[in-house]
């Protein structure tokens, strides 16, 4: 891995000594990591050690390697960001069992997505930095400052977590095992997410209170029935490799140059607002967009906003459009000039805004004359057989018929602008029927005028 000429004999600063308590496992694990890095002859410029909070978080200061010291339990997120951004780097996370607990979601997700980082958990079964409180790996009955009568909770099995999300590499060892360095080497060399659960004594707290010396730790492992050594080692494609391929494919896509957009004249005399009230699945929003866009290419200022419940496939679907020949500052429609009502769902949502001057375009089957007789003069209600006519094309085009009826009634701009919007902005499969629908809508208004 190295590009330097002289092989490095250590990556530790020669003038610094690890600050851990006498007998602390962290010193053993950190020295083993140094040995692993020397064996691998890593390039320190191409390597980042990521730590978080806890005694283990002091470790990165002692390595003459790029370092990132972050927030408690979040080291895996920074490491993931670093690896995603520069997949060439060796990214090694050093965290404690405390960080594993608070950042457990990140651990699971990193293992699941198989991001190529190495996570070394310096696991000493309690929080050594804050006074020996219990952690998620404290064994059942373990005595800590916050479990003075013994821990009532089951400990987490770190390696099993990796397996549970179909992760690719998990190993368990202790600071008493000769293979500590070799396992670290295997983890660092693994292409994909690799976790090592390293069991250590915390001489300040946990070991003292629980008689957790070498025999205690090894005995606990066998009594829990946990395996030791490399427990999981699968070959699975690493995430950044997949992303690299995806990016290359996406970059190769040549975006076709947009056709020159035709532009049209408008006849707008005053600012005009339209509320379209229908139901989910009627293509209210996408159809309204085409109408609004046709206003844009007619030289108007237009705003469009939509309203729908979070359960998008059910209930009302409302779109609000304002057309103006000057900049639209206030985008609420308190008093709609026009309302196109296609369903009772939509009507219920917008009915409070209907006023005496609102022109209602609606389907004849909804019986709006009766519903609105107190509010709106019958001459302002335009009943047209939208749903019936739509069936002849496709029921999904009812909104397009109604929008065309609006355009031909308001005469804000030309039918051709609407045609152009459909031809340039609609999905190709929808164009033909959309064009049919707006012809139907136009004809409805002509028929009304003629009658």
């Amino acid at each position, binding site marked *: 891995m190295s590009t330097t000429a002289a092989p490095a004999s250590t990556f530790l600063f020669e003038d610094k000594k690890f600050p851990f308590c006498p007998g602390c496992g962290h010193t053993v694990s950190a020295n083993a990591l140094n040995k692993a890095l020397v064996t691998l002859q890593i390039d*320190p*410029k*191409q390597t*980042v050690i*990521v730590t978080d909070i806890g005694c283990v978080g002091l470790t*990165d*200061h002692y390595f*003459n*390697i*790029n*370092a*990132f*010291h*972050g*927030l408690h339990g*979040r080291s895996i*997120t*920074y*490491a*993931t*960001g*670093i*690896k*995603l*951004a*520069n997949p*060439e*780097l060796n990214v090694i996370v050093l965290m404690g069992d405390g960080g594993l607990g608070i950042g457990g*979601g*990140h651990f699971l*997700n990193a293992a699941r997505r198989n991001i190529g980082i190495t996570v070394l958990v310096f696991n000493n079964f309690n929080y050594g930095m804050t006074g020996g409180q219990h952690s998620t790996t404290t064994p059942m009955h373990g005595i800590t400052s916050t479990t003075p009568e013994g821990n009532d909770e089951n400990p987490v099995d770190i390696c099993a977590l990796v397996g549970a999300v179909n992760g690719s590499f998990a190993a368990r060892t202790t600071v008493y095992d000769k293979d500590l360095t070799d396992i670290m080497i295997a983890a660092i060399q693994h292409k994909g997410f690799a976790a090592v659960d390293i069991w250590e004594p915390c001489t300040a707290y946990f070991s003292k209170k629980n008689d957790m010396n070498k025999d205690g730790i090894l005995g606990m492992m066998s009594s829990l029935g946990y395996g030791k050594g490399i427990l999981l080692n699968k070959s699975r494609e690493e995430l950044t490799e997949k*992303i690299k391929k*995806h*990016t290359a494919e*996406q*970059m190769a*896509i040549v*975006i076709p140059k947009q056709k020159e*957009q035709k*532009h049209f004249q408008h006849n707008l005399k005053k600012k005009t607002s339209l509320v379209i009230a229908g139901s989910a699945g009627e293509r209210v929003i996408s159809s309204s*967009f085409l109408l*609004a*866009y046709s206003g*844009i*290419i007619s030289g*108007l*200022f*237009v*705003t*469009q*906003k*939509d*309203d729908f419940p*979070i359960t998008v496939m059910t209930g009302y679907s409302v779109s609000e459009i304002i057309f103006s020949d000057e900049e*639209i*500052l*206030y*985008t*609420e429609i*308190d008093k709609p000039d026009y309302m196109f009502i296609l369903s009772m769902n939509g009507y219920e949502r917008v009915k409070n805004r209907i006023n005496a001057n609102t022109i209602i375009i609606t389907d004849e089957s909804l019986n709006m004359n009766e519903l609105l007789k107190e509010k709106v003069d019958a001459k302002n209600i335009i009943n047209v057989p939208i749903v019936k006519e739509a069936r002849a094309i496709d029921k999904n085009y009812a909104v397009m018929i109604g929008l065309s009826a609006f355009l031909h009634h308001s005469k804000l701009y030309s039918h051709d602008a609407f045609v152009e919007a459909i031809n340039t902005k609609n999905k190709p499969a929808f164009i033909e029927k959309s064009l049919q629908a707006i012809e139907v809508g136009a004809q409805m208004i002509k028929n009304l005028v003629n009658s």
Partner: protein
Amino acid sequence: MNIDFLDGNEMVALGAFEAGCNFFAGYPITPASAILQQMIDDLPKHGGTAIQAEDEIASIGFCIGAAMTGKKVLTATSGPGLSLYSENIGMAIMGETPMVIVDVQRHGPATGSATKDGASDIQFARWSTSGGYPIIALVPTCVEECYTMAIQAFNYAEQFRTPVFLLSSKEIAMTRERVDWSKIKKPEIVNRTYHKPEDGKYIPYRFVNSEDIPPFAAYGGEELTRYTTSTHDENANLLADPAKIQRMMDHLNKKIDADKVSLVVKDFEEGAETLVVSYGVTSRTAREAIKMARANNVKVSSLVIHSVWPVPEKEIKNALKGMKKVVVPEMNAGQYIYEVQRLIDNNAQLIGVNTMDTKLINPEKIYQAIVG
């Protein structure tokens, strides 16, 4: 003619692409999800990486890690997500991380009304993390400004090595408007200052004067570098010496200078004794009210604040000169009004126009405050 019909979220994404954004991480949240979607769809086409994280804590964590490899990073969320960003915003400040955080504000607190508008996070953005160190926040008033301010936000992030907020809101983010590209004045792109080999050994947090910005070196480059969330010396080592700690903290406090980050739009009327101070989408309603007032021969001046943090105090003080009435409309219970209040040095009457009903403030309400 180069005309589009786009919403604010789309324009934030386009602004980010233009600024050279090459890393995005986010988590779905209304009304910001469309930015995540567009980044997933389009950032790889620009050679960048976009990813959906498991939660907001991971989103911003990914971004901070990526930023330190030299990427120009963006994340987008709304109020509840910003709550989860809080701790990492503090770290981004402490570690001097260039990054842009889009907060598409919605009606809060807590889950509030997910799909409704409100200027819920104006003070939250300022004080979102422990320590109270300065941040930069830009607030667009329209769709076109979502584009220009996204670029500006990246520029400031790069210039000052700090998280920069773009405080959009549901109404701007999810309302489509006419976009006339021929009229958009695109800010020139600014990139962070990198350490140069001729400057000697790289020291990650080195500054001479408090306000200086330490040059940057990326992970994977020619220099070894260190990043830290803790109180640190220039080499990123833990600090215990009070004098040195004070110096480092003074640096974080002074490096963001309101004189260098001051974006306002002034519309002063000769002889006016009433001033409207506004920001965000409410500025538009305020302009509508001001038009009504002027049409009725009421003289009124307007100050629209684009850079709400740091407070552009000089501009506000200048606008306040000789005013007898100051109107501050806000879609919250009154958050920025106190920043204006502390700058009033006469007995001018201060009126807040506040709504929290999820609707835009009706221009009539602001008009009444102006003429009343």
